[in-house]
């Protein structure tokens, strides 16, 4: 599985959506159930799946699908 597929799976599982829905506007403003529980769940799963330890500001920055990609880039994870 590629890193992108891993990330997509995490999002699909977390928000109960299909991969087609993961577009540029998949963010806290547009996803109704994107609350702190989902966000921290997202951060924990990303940490486990990619074996990294996110900084607090990265967890706070996890407010969109694109944001998650940027956070991964910061940890040199190529998508």
């Amino acid at each position, binding site marked *: 599985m590629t890193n992108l597929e891993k990330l997509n799976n995490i999002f699909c599982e977390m928000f109960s959506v299909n991969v087609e829905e993961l577009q540029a506007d998949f963010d806290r403003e547009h996803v109704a*159930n994107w609350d702190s529980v989902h966000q921290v769940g997202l951060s924990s799963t990303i940490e486990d799946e990619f074996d990294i330890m996110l900084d607090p500001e990265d*967890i706070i920055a996890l407010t969109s699908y694109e944001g998650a990609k940027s956070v991964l880039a910061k940890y040199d994870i190529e998508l």
Partner: protein
Amino acid sequence: MFLNIDQKPKDKVAVIDDSATELTYGDLCRYADEFREVLPSRTLVFLLAENRIGSLIGYTSLLNNHVVPLIISSATERTLFDNLYATYRPEYLWLPVEKVAEYAANEPIYTAQGYALVRTGYPQAQLYDDLSLLLPTSGSTGSPKLVRHSYRNIEANAENVMNLFGITPSERALASLPMHYTMGLSVIASHLYAGATVLLCGKSLLDAGFWKMLRDREATSITGVPYSYELLAKLRFFRMDLPHLTTITQGGGKLTEELWRQIVDYCQSRGKRFIATYGQSECTARMAYLPAHLAATKIGSIGIAEPGGQLSIVNNDNIETFEGEDTGEMVYRGENVTLGYANSCDDLMLGDVNHGVMHTGDLTRRDADGCYYIIGRLKRFLKIFGLRIGLDEVENIIRTNYDTDCYCSGTDEKLIVKVTNPVVADSIPTLIEDKTHLFHQRVEVMVVDKILRNEAGKVINQ
């Protein structure tokens, strides 16, 4: 005036929200007067709450003017809102301006601070004279069951909580728990009563806006549920130097022992107070607290009754005891014990059925020093992420939406749903998340052949 707001210095800042809007105590008085002009008579209003100033002036003005609000989240799921609306028939809505078109057919008759007052078309409500405020019993499962508060309940809670924490006018409390949640409201009421400043924050702990407010506004206290502290730990809160923060308080369920120790260590090394509290919406939020100097030795305890209240235990021999070691259902007495429940519009005419005594439904142990510990629960609900999940209500939601028998149980970590129809099993977690906002990964579904019941219809062997 309500909470003696008019007796505070007129130019003192009463509330600042996360859009940097500020109101003084004088402004709160002025809004109450404006409300009285447009809404002069006693009636029922649904207040669709958000942690913003517009929401708060609805609360202070309506209570001051003896108009009764039902405070619910502005994010209440629509069918649950419709159920409440049809059940209680409010004459007005006080809601964010941007939601008017979605919820109301009429034009607003008054707007202030991004909120609007709209007539619904329902007639003036018939209300018991001493009824002040209504709150849902469960934050989210949307049962139409409400808690009925008296005017004295609100003041007694504000006064007791002010005394419990020693709140002075120089406090700046970060109020980030939702206003529609009894403890969130208690933070607001107690600080206004004390003439302090409320930092009303609608941002989640995972939003940079929360941290900006905490630091830039030099918050002196924060109040959270166990889940708040799980998040704070994750965000390395316990390594932060926040010199203005003096008090950390917690309620809304039990902290893990590990997290409790982390908070105590943090507070001890930085010269802050940690005060754990216990309460129920049936008793206007707070009922018990563990004094800060006991936090390191009485781990996990809810402590003693708050000032103005009394705790006791009804033990297995059905004897009520007030001191010494004992175990049994905890009972609370005090002026903050609410009037009772409402299940229908007619119930809004009911008087006080509790008479100042609340059987809490919590099983407790009292140690030789008089400190109480929660060890179990008699009532059918869970508290997950600070959300109160009524099991009967979740069962109703499932039965209404699917053709299956079901039974709910669980812990404060996980809701367990047993269903008899395997076809619907996979869709249950998403349904529950949609209706109650409980994170679907905290729902475990099990398919069973049959839910066993006794002759009275009560579920057995679960």
